[in-house]
Every structure is written in structure tokens, then in C-alpha cells.
């Protein structure tokens, strides 16, 4: 890893000044020059130089380096949400590519700093990640690599079961901070960690907790979407397990906003690199190479939805509409096509509007508010579905409402099924009850089976998931060894059954 060579450093300063001049407001950004191998390593680690040891990073690295060596893919750009921001440039890339990447990175930096969904993220994540790694290595030293790694496997298999909106709800946010670094509830406070077991014996703590708790209270009181938090507080975990789980959870929360703003974030960065490059950074000899690189990133494909492309086009569309005053009551009530086509009030509010959008929106609200029928047609968007008969994916429709609905569905909860903890004493047998909020798409059965097995290992009692399989409501019951699929009776069926007995 190294600093930038003098000429690129010069360019960097120029690009930063240009970015500031157009109103981008970034954290300091540290660019590092890395080799392709380092690039692959950092990419495998999600951008960070240090992560806790786990084979999944090895798998990612294996894939990335092979695909690079076969010439199938190449990572151009990587940037980390941190203060200061860190970004990597790859050695041996063309100069015009490096400039493009720098301009693109400044776009991301501005987004990280100013989009309000990123507000609760840890801006010292570089350090935090390194600390996580240290903590996990310490656990590995003490309890064995295999033991800790297989526990991490379990945690990772449920890492998506967090409440993505929790950090933005005031009371929850406090709760999160409170539990963040606590690995053990202590009655008496003192500073010798290793004595803790003796000063605050386990059964004493349990007793104290029991006393404070109303025995008839259903836990959780309301369905809890943050399954990880619930398990941290209620599953029979050892201290180190609780610590590992809290680490996985806090990393999961850190990455969540990036999932929530993928289209916007890439769109914003692409919008600015294209503007800065074409208006001021590039020189004449670089135009062709730039256009080639740009076309590559913004390529459309029939099945791969390209967030770069949709993002940049939407930002441009918004800017154009607000420049021409194509918004508000009068615009939407106008039904004369010719008049609409020529509509231009010279409002000039475009630039201002896109900065506002970049501050206040996430992908769901962004698409919901700014995706227009006109835009869909112009960008040739469509919905595709799997056809059971032909076994192929086929184009389904170009209808605007369908496209919008499909997109929103894909983005809600980051395209993941929504799972809540319903009850921790199901059937009065200490079983865990989870419910899948069914929205028309079933979960993948074999994956669910393995995940439930992991949950049962954590909970140490059977775990139940209410979901829908083959269009019928079912309960998946996993006791740690086997999975049973139980029918869910409707009320009338239940009555009939009771009567028969």
C-alpha cells in the first residue's frame, strides 16, 4: 500500500477542489495505491484491511482472485464509509480510470456524510472492525478456533435478521447503544474482568433477573424484528458467544444503510463523476477511454438490474424536471400531452432539488416518489418472471405499476423476507416462535431448514417458523436434529378438530 504518486496527488487535489466547488461536502479522503492482490483482499473483507478470521472471506478472495486472473472481472473502485473516508486505487490502471475513480469516490464520500440514513453509522469503523477482529481472535485463543468459527457460522446465517429501521427510532437507538458493548450483565461493578464470574455468580444474576421479571409477561411483548438483539438478551449464551453475536450484529447494522441506498449512492457518484469528468477533469486524449469505461459501468442488461444506470438516470431526470418546473399540482393535473412536452417554467431548481434528495431519501422512498411512467418507458424497464412451464425467465410486462411494485418489493427490507420473533415460550414449552411476514413470495426451503437448525442450536430448544409453503400456511418445527412441517389449522378447522375429539 502506498501514497499516490506526485502527479496523481496533483490531480486528486484538483478533483477535490472541483468537487467542493460544485457543492459536494466530503470527509477527508485518503487514497491508497494497492496491487490487484491487495485489492482482492480488501474487497473480500468488505473494504476493510482487517476483519475477524473467517473462511467466508477466504472464499470471496478465492473467487475474486481467480476471476481476476482469468480476466473476467476487475475491481475499479472501493470506498469505505469512515471519517476520514478510505478509498483504493489499483496500480496499473489507466490514468483516466484513476481520475474517474477519484471523482466517483468523492461522490460516494459526500453521500456517506450527508445522507441521513448514514447518520447513525459508526464513522470510526476502521478501528471498530480491527477491535472486533482482536476480540474474536482472543476468543479463539481461549476457546479454540473451530468452536468459535462454527459459532460465527451460526451467527452469520441469521445476520440479516435485524431491524433496519431501529437506528432511526429514538428509544431503540438508545437501547442499541446500551447493549452494544455489554457482554455481561454485572451487579457489582469493578475493573478486573477475570474475577467477574466469582464476584457476580451466574445464579445470583439469574435470581435477580427472575425477581425483576413478571412471570406472566409474554416475551417479547410485541413482535420483535431485531432477532439478533432478542437472542443476545434471551438465548442461553456463554459470554463469549454473546460477544460474538453482538459483533456480528453491529457490523450488520453498519452495512445496512449501504444496502438501503444502493441505487441512490451509485447513481449520485456516477452523476458527479460524469459531470466532473466531462466538464473539467478530462483532457481531449482521454475521451474515448472514458466513454468506454463509462459505457461499461452503465450497461443495461435484460436480467441484471443495474443500480448505477437507474440511479444516474433518475437523478438526471429529477434535475431536469425541477429545472423545468415539471412538478406540483399544475403539472400533475395537466392532461394535454403537447403542453406537457413543451412544459418549461424556467424554475431552475434542479441542482437544489437533487441535493435535497440525496440528503433525505433512501432507495425505497426514492423509487416511490421519483420513478415515473415516462421514465420507465424511456429506460425500457420491464418485469420478468420465472415460467414454470418452460423453466425459463421470461419478460412478463412493461406496465408501469407492475414495474414500480416489483422494484419496491425488491428493495423493501433489502430484498429479504421479514421475520419477527413472536414468542419465546411457545406452547408453554420454551420453544421459540418466529413468523415470516408473507408477502406473496415463499422462502427457499432448503436454506430455511439449515437456518432453523442453526437457530435451534443457539436457542437450545426447538424453534418454529410460521410461513407459507406451496401456497399453504405451515409451521416449520426444528428440534435441532430434524425438521417437521406442521399444518396450520384455520379457526374453523381447529374447532372441528376439537369437536371431533
Amino acid at each position, binding site marked *: 500500500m502506498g501514497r499516490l504518486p506526485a502527479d496523481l496527488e496533483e490531480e486528486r487535489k484538483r478533483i477535490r477542489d472541483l468537487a467542493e466547488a460544485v457543492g459536494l461536502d466530503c470527509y477527508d479522503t485518503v487514497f491508497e495505491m494497492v496491487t490487484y492482490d491487495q485489492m482482492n*483482499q480488501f474487497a*473480500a*473483507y468488505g473494504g476493510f484491511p482487517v476483519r475477524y*478470521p*473467517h*473462511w*467466508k*472471506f*477466504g*472464499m470471496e*478472495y*478465492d473467487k475474486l482472485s*481467480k476471476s481476476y486472473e482469468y480476466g473476467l472481472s476487475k475491481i475499479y473502485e472501493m470506498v469505505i464509509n469512515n471519517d476520514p473516508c478510505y478509498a483504493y486505487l489499483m496500480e496499473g490502471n489507466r490514468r483516466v480510470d484513476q481520475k474517474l475513480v477519484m471523482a466517483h469516490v468523492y461522490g460516494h464520500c459526500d453521500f456517506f456524510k450527508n445522507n441521513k440514513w448514514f447518520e447513525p453509522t459508526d464513522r470510526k469503523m476502521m478501528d471498530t472492525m480491527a477491535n472486533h477482529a482482536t476480540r474474536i481472535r482472543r476468543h479463539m485463543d481461549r476457546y479454540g478456533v473451530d468452536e468459535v*468459527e462454527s459459532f460465527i*457460522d451460526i451467527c452469520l*446465517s*441469521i445476520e*440479516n*435478521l435485524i431491524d433496519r429501521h431501529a437506528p432511526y427510532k429514538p428509544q431503540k437507538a438508545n437501547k442499541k447503544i446500551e447493549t452494544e458493548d455489554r457482554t455481561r450483565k454485572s451487579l457489582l461493578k469493578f475493573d478486573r474482568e477475570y474475577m467477574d464470574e466469582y464476584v457476580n455468580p451466574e445464579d445470583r444474576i439469574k435470581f435477580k433477573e427472575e425477581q425483576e421479571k413478571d412471570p406472566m409477561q409474554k416475551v417479547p411483548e410485541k413482535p420483535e424484528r431485531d432477532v439478533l438483539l432478542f437472542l443476545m438478551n434471551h438465548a442461553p449464551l456463554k459470554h463469549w458467544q454473546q460477544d460474538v453475536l453482538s459483533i456480528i450484529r453491529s457490523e450488520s447494522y453498519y452495512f445496512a444503510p449501504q444496502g438501503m441506498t444502493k441505487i441512490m449512492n451509485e447513481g449520485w457518484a456516477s452523476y458527479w463523476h460524469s459531470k466532473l469528468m466531462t466538464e473539467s477533469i478530462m483532457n481531449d486524449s482521454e475521451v474515448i477511454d472514458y466513454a468506454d469505461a463509462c*459505457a*461499461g459501468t452503465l*450497461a*443495461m*442488461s*435484460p*436480467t*441484471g*438490474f*443495474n*443500480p448505477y*444506470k437507474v440511479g444516474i438516470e433518475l437523478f438526471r431526470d429529477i434535475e431536469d424536471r425541477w429545472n423545468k418546473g415539471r412538478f406540483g399540482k399544475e403539472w400533475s393535473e395537466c392532461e394535454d400531452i403537447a403542453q406537457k412536452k413543451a412544459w418549461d417554467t424556467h424554475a431552475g431548481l434542479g441542482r437544489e432539488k437533487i441535493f435535497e434528495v440525496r440528503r433525505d431519501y433512501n432507495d425505497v422512498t426514492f423509487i416511490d416518489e421519483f420513478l415515473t411512467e415516462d421514465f420507465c418507458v424511456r*429506460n*425500457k*424497464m*420491464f*418485469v420478468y418472471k*420465472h415460467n414454470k412451464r*418452460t423453466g*425459463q*425467465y*421470461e*419478460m*412478463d410486462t412493461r406496465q408501469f405499476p407492475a*414495474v414500480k411494485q*416489483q*422494484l419496491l418489493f*425488491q428493495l423493501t427490507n433489502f*430484498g*429479504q*423476507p421479514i421475520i419477527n420473533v413472536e414468542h419465546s415460550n411457545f406452547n408453554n414449552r420454551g420453544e421459540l416462535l418466529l413468523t*415470516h411476514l408473507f408477502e406473496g*413470495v*415463499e*422462502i*427457499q*426451503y432448503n*436454506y*430455511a431448514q439449515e*437456518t432453523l437448525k*442453526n437457530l435451534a442450536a443457539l436457542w437450545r430448544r426447538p424453534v418454529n417458523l410460521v410461513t407459507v409453503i406451496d401456497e399453504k400456511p405451515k409451521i416449520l418445527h426444528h428440534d435441532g436434529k430434524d425438521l417437521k412441517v406442521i399444518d396450520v389449522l384455520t379457526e374453523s378447522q381447529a374447532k372441528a378438530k376439537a369437536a371431533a375429539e
Partner: protein
Amino acid sequence: MSIREDQNRFRDIVRGKIKENFKDYVTHGEMIGKRENDYVKIPVPYIDIPRFKYGPKQKGGVGQGEGKPGDPVGKGKGEKKPGEGKAGNEAGEHQVEVDISFEELAEILGEELELPRIEPKGSKIASEKNRYSGIAPVGPEGLRHFKSSYKRALKRYISSGLYDPEDPVIVPIRGDYRYRSTKTTIKPQANAVVIYIMDVSGSMGNEQKEIVRLESFWINAWLKKHYKGLETRFIIHDATAREVDEDTFFRTSESGGTLISSAYKLCRDIIQREYPPHEWNIYPFHFSDGDNWSGDDTRLCMKILKEGLMPNVNFFGYGQVESKYGSGQFLKDLEKEFPSDEKMILSKIKNKEAILGSIKDFLGKGR
């Protein structure tokens, strides 16, 4: 780099998974088709981290481009356009595929079957290599060898009586200096050739050929591990024999009578012409359903084997694939003719499941 640790752990897991299901991998042919130079692509189930997620088949998605409703949208992997890789969001359901080298695959095979390492026989082809392991009285100053130079000077001092233990100063002169020099070491390297012979007469069906294909793939993997630059030759025969390339070897379907001797003759000639036995490790494998045209021809086979083949090869492997039409007589004949010859290895392959056992028969002796 710490990523190496993670990568090694990942590879260990892959190896573990492959070992767990090794039998399936051996009897399923599809991975052989996915060869790329030194790697094989192997589908490894359950190496992914399980999660609650939507089933991809129902999900569908939003795409961009030309077309009208009802048109299939390409899911083909080969049709990636430049830049598409970045877009991600692929809905396709794919098993995790892992690249694994032949070397590793062979190692796993060896561990699973407890195969002994092969002891290459006889004299070896030498490869020359220069290494700085010698000392010479002349050479460039950069290669001056301090220790031997000092020793020479000390010797000179002592023998000429100049040495004073109170003041042990040694001043070397020109003649004391010694320098590192290159020495040519001869590194033995074993050469090997495998000659596969297959009976393609009418009685060998597709299933039988599949077995031969799988078995020879694994034998090749194991031998390749021991011999760099392993050569392979392929002979097919019915009533006449001819040499073919690998592709033809596995695809050709002839029909007609069977004269095994024709193939043995050809094999003998190839060895005589191209592979002097004192320089080469030679492994002929013959796969057949055990039907020969006549007793006369069988007798001729035995003669060629005894005189022309057996003295020159590491071992001769005969694998008899069971088929509805074959009598299986040839195996019995060989048994009778070579009752206690260690170099004649016979193996019966009943079905696909028996491939592993048969490989062990052939390679379990470490020749």
C-alpha cells in the same frame, strides 16, 4: 497476509466436503467435462451460509432492454456483456462451484483410497541444474567466500610459523581467496506414459464406456501427480486396432468382432518405437468386456504379453467391465496364464459404484 489464513480454512472446508461425498464425485461424470487446463470445476453443495431468503424461482425481477412480454430473458452465463459484472443482483440459483487443481484432487483420491506413492522405476531422464554449491580459486569479488578464504590464510600462517596466538592477525594474500562457484547437479526426472486400450466392439455399450471414461480420468489424475509431463496414448480396437486422440477414444462406437491381439500388437509397437523402457515408466491399461473372438487369438495375446509387453511395463492393468453380452472369459484366461505375476493387475468392474474399488486394485501396489 491474513487473507491467506482464511483462504486456507476455506480450502480445508472444500476438501472436507469433497471427501465426504467423494464417491458421488467419482461416479458422476459432469465434472470431467468442466476441465480447464489444470483446474476442475466442482459443484460443492452447502458450502454457502444458509439464510432465510426468497426462493429465486418465484422472485423474478426488473430488467432493462428491448423485447416484448413473453420473450425469454437470457439467463445464460456465457452472455455477460462488459460491465455487467458490476450490476450484480443476479437472481440465478447456482450451487457454489469451486476450482480445484488436479494435484489436490489426486491427493484426495490418494487419501481416500490409501494409495501408496508410486516408486518410479529404473533409470531416469536427467535434467541439469546449476547451483552455487562449489568453491573455486577464481571468481568475481562479489562471490568471495569469506570462511574458506580465511581458512586458507590461517592454514598458511600456521604452517609457515607466522601465527601468533597473542596477536592473531591474519592478512590474506591473493592466493588465499576462494569464491563460490556453480556446480551442475543432475536432477533425475521420471518420465511416464499411459496407454489406454479400449475394446469398442459391439458389445461395449454407452454405460460401459462411461465407466472406462471415469476410471481413466481418475487414474490419469493420480499418475499425473507423480509424473510431471505424463504422456497419454489411446488405442481402440475391434477386429483391428488403431491409435486415436482422446476425444475419439471416448466417443467412437464401432461394431464387429474382437481381436484383442491386434491392440496388444499396436501397443507393443508404440512402446518399441517411442518409449525405450529403461527411460520410461509405462502403464498400459486395457478395458474390455472380456469377449475375444477365438481361443487362437487369446493364445496370441498371451504370447505378445509375455514376450513383448510384460518385461517392459511397470504393470499391465486389465479392467473387465461387465456387460450383458460379454462372456468375461478373457479375465479367466489371464488369471490362468499369469497366476502369480505381480505386474499383471486384473480388476472386475461391475458397475459405476465399483470404480473406486477398481482404481484401488490398479494403483494400490505403488508401482
